[in-house]
């Protein structure tokens, strides 16, 4: 049963030019006046209770897409539906069913608000609890994320990174969402703390039956927590499918090179781990290459890749890739 539907969502950012920049541009200075196409025509669905991983390098649009889904940014075109109802109408968020956990818990908590107040604020404003009962309500959520409820009267700076991320999770969950967007929730945490937060996430997801979108550049984390994953490159989804399938047998050349770039711990090798880096760098999102955006770095690129944009097409019943030669690559026949 589909819970989240992302329907042909695009989001671009027009450059906000100051008066000076406009004049400079008129006089022929090198001012970027083109819009950035951060997310281009993304369609994907997530069934209730499942977790979709959004994977890609910086600038691929995964964070922008996360902000569009959670109703922080309106999409330029397309819609995001929860259970058939739009997240935003007329540029305003009209639901509390989707909440978000941000990457940096040092930035996502208001430094001048007591953490208990920060957790209570949304639920009180939306009538999930009353001001009188807010203390107990917050205490319940604090206990739920493994924090001592007595700490509710402290300020964010009095907590460590891991504790802050627990508070941020409590704040999102106190709104009783069905869908939780996690934008790199463990990326800024220490390794030994990451495992604690991932375990907490797994517990809460199971106990509360949450549907999740998990944004991360860390492939091992995505592999661990996501049922399905979508790989993004320059604003588009280039491959989507069940996590294990994509990891074991990537169909898109970008996915293949991305997986090959990740240094992995290999415990039974005496020699150092070998990996094959992708050639070149991600092109500017102001002027993505024509045709398939990945063609300048792709080892399999042919003429058609330089002119024609490959659509995201099904390879099997629930596996999609945007590559002209996906079938050949899967069959090992691509050159």
């Amino acid at each position, binding site marked *: 049963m589909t819970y989240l539907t992302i329907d042909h969502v695009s989001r671009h950012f027009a450059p906000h030019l100051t008066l000076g920049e406009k004049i400079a541009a008129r006089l022929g200075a090198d001012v970027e006046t083109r819009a950035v196409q951060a997310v281009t025509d993304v369609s994907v669905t997530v069934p209730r209770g499942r977790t979709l991983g959004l994977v890609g390098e910086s600038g691929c649009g995964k964070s922008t897409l996360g902000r569009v889904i959670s109703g922080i940014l309106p999409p330029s075109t397309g819609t995001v539906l929860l259970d058939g109802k739009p997240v935003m109408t007329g540029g305003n968020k009209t639901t509390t069913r989707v909440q978000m956990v941000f*990457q940096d818990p040092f930035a996502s*908590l208001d*430094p001048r608000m007591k953490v208990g107040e920060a957790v209570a604020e949304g639920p009180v404003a939306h009538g999930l609890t009353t001001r009188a009962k807010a203390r107990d309500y917050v205490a319940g959520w604090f206990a739920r994320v493994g924090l001592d409820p007595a700490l509710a009267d402290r300020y964010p700076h009095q907590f460590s990174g891991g504790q802050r991320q627990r508070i941020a999770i409590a704040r999102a969950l106190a709104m009783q969402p069905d869908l939780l967007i996690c934008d790199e929730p463990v990326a800024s945490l220490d390794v030994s703390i990451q495992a604690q937060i991932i375990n907490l996430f797994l517990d809460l997801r199971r106990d509360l039956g949450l549907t999740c979108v998990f944004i991360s550049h860390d492939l091992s984390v995505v592999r661990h927590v996501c049922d399905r994953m979508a790989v993004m490159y320059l604003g588009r989804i280039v491959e989507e499918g069940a996590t294990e399938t994509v990891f074991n047998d990537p169909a898109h050349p970008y996915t293949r090179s991305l997986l090959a770039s990740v240094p992995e711990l290999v415990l039974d090798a005496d020699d150092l781990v070998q990996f094959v880096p992708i050639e070149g760098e991600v092109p500017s999102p102001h002027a993505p290459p024509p045709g398939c955006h990945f063609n300048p770095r792709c080892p399999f690129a042919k003429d058609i890749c330089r002119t024609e944009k490959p659509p995201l097409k099904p390879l099997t019943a629930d596996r999609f890739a945007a590559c002209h030669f996906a079938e050949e690559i899967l069959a090992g026949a691509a050159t």
Partner: protein
Amino acid sequence: MTPLARFWSEFRENRIALVALVVVVLVVLLAIFAPLITPQDPYDMTGLSLMDARRPPGFVGSGGYAHVLGTDPQGRDLLSAILYGLRISIQIGLAAGGVALTIGAALGILAAYAGGRIETLIMRIVDLQLSFPAILLALVLVALLGQGKGQLIGALVAAQYAYFARTAYGAAKSERRKDYIEAARATPLSTRRVILRHLLPNCTPPLIVVATVQIANSISLEATLSFLGLGLPVTEPSLGMLISNGFPYMMSGRYWISVYPGIALIILIVAINIVGDQIRDQFNPRLRK
């Protein structure tokens, strides 16, 4: 430890700033309780005697008490006049600073949050005004509005709100981009709530710094206007007017009429500025260890 307690313990470590703060508090207390501690009500024209005019410090006049700092050309006890003058200066400084802070912060935060045309309109006007000397603007306004406390405060506000607007705009613009504002919008919380509960509190540190400096500036601006005869009516002598009154006698040896009010003014303004500098240093993360 609350943020305030932490702030105070850091503030205390700077001895000079601490002394300056004590001076400011002392001056404010003296001004508040002036009617109780001064020997004379300098506004009460009937209590003045021209016989006592321009007497040196220590002179015992018709009132039967010593004029510790001497008397002014109207025969006022200078100590009393200075304390009452401080009272007016501080009142005007606080009132003008407060109103300018409110108006300026509101405009600046609105511009930063709304963006687009509203932002351009507000900030262009502010920039235009900042390119104009505040004293000139205040002079023109006082000349147009006439004399009186209200008019003077109005002129000072008009001359100074732009500094607050600029500061609030800069702070709000950078705070707006931070995740906690996005988190509040993702909840979602109403725009009013996001601005009042999240954006405004986080914009206050730089505003407090500007406020201290601007209160000092208001006081000296008021003194300047009064010195030029454009400030308050002669019946309510402020520090600027006292200095002005004594000016003709400076060269004839009766220095005290101008010099003592001048010293009082300088002490107050310097002390406020030292306190303001310390607050600024404490808010500046780059100077932190």
